[in-house]
């Protein structure tokens, strides 16, 4: 069985996603980094934008500290998420400068751009895992 990211997917995932999700289930959120130029990538990718060899790309664990850069509260959702609305989709900037789009959960009032958040791993079932933001 290959592991999948998120609650739904529309494609057969490459092995990178399987490896990423396996670690996500183990509470590790991994990006990839190129050892030739030190460029960091999240979500992880198999090749460096600076045209370095793919053998130079390896996993590293991303920072969990984030700041909210933009958000929306989805009221009218795509079919796949209709029963979950309303929910918050947020873009957070991690302490190492990488940005992540994910749900922001566990909030009691309207989110504020600039608020501090934590990035957390969550296992959905034996096959799937996801990451999400929570307020600090």
């Amino acid at each position, binding site marked *: 069985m290959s592991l999948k*990211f*998120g*609650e*739904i*997917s*529309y*494609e057969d*995932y490459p092995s990178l*996603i399987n490896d990423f999700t396996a670690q996500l289930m183990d509470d590790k959120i991994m990006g990839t980094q190129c050892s030739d130029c030190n460029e960091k990538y999240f*979500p992880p990718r198999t090749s460096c934008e600076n045209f370095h060899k793919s053998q130079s790309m390896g996993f590293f664990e991303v920072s969990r500290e984030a700041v909210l*850069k*933009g*958000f*929306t*509260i*989805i*009221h*009218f*959702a*795509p*079919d*796949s*998420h*209709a029963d*979950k609305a*309303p*929910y918050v*989709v947020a*873009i957070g900037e991690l302490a190492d400068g990488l*940005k*992540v*789009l*994910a*749900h922001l959960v566990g909030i009691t009032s309207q989110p*504020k*751009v*600039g608020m501090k958040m934590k990035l957390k791993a969550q296992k959905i079932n034996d096959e799937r895992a*996801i990451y999400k933001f929570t307020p600090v």
Partner: protein
Amino acid sequence: MTGIPTIRVESACATGTAAIITAYNMIKSGFRDSVLVIGAEKMTAVDSAVATTLMARAGDLRWEFPFGCSFPGYYALMATSHMAEFGTTKEMLSAVGVKNHHYGAKNKYAHLRKEITLEEAMKAVQIAYPLNIYDCSLISDGGAAVLLTKESMAKKYTDTPIYIDGIGMGSDTMRMSDRASLSELKGTQTAARSAYKMAGIEANDVDIAEVHDCFTIAEILAMEDLGFYEKGTAGPAVLDQQTYIGGKIPINVDGGLKSKGHPLGATGISQAVELRKQLLGEANDRQVDGASVGLSHNVGQTGQFVNVMIYSRGN
């Protein structure tokens, strides 16, 4: 028209201008003398929920779609970012919709010919906060066409041809999270710069603009990224009615995507049709007096495709 060679062009919501640019290059290269560019879309064949699901795929499928971010949701992310960075308010967003409905009501080809008040616009049903239904363009059926031909042949078809003076194209990352800023569309800035350069003009030479207001925040971003306003100043300018006829730069005075409608593949061509009318002084009670340079701004997905066209009456 059976037997006439055809080509199909697709660039999401920027398909219309992509088709015009394709035809332009076929003529400029000498491959064809004339090309008829037709855009048509029938979107009401599916209900809004299905359309929402299909359009959500305009985002990054592997890493962002799994979070159920709708197409309005992606623009809503830009809206909250712009609001936090520049103090743009919900009232400013809604004022864009009020203006576009004001002019759409006067346009007999508009899909939703209805004026709305600022109060109605602000209190409407939520789609993706801070965007409500009056911040979102319509799911429309529609079509538009233009005939492109060589300069030397134009007078054979009409005494009043319109010239393509400038074309610019730009793009951006597929993932929203890969963008340095959420408060701008880089592709619009790139496309505008090259279109102005090719036409030999500057932003303040433009007399009338058709911009891609798929959402109200998109019109505010376009006003800034096209160079009509400094970053962060477009919202107050909308409230000040500077984009109405008689203001600094009349924008979407045909109703825009918001009220005229947004049949995806037809939109960029419909902008050309409207600008032709304006440049020839045929827009009746929506006429911008003396308009001689018109700009069309057409965006695909969330800025992955951006085309800017400059049209004029020529010299």
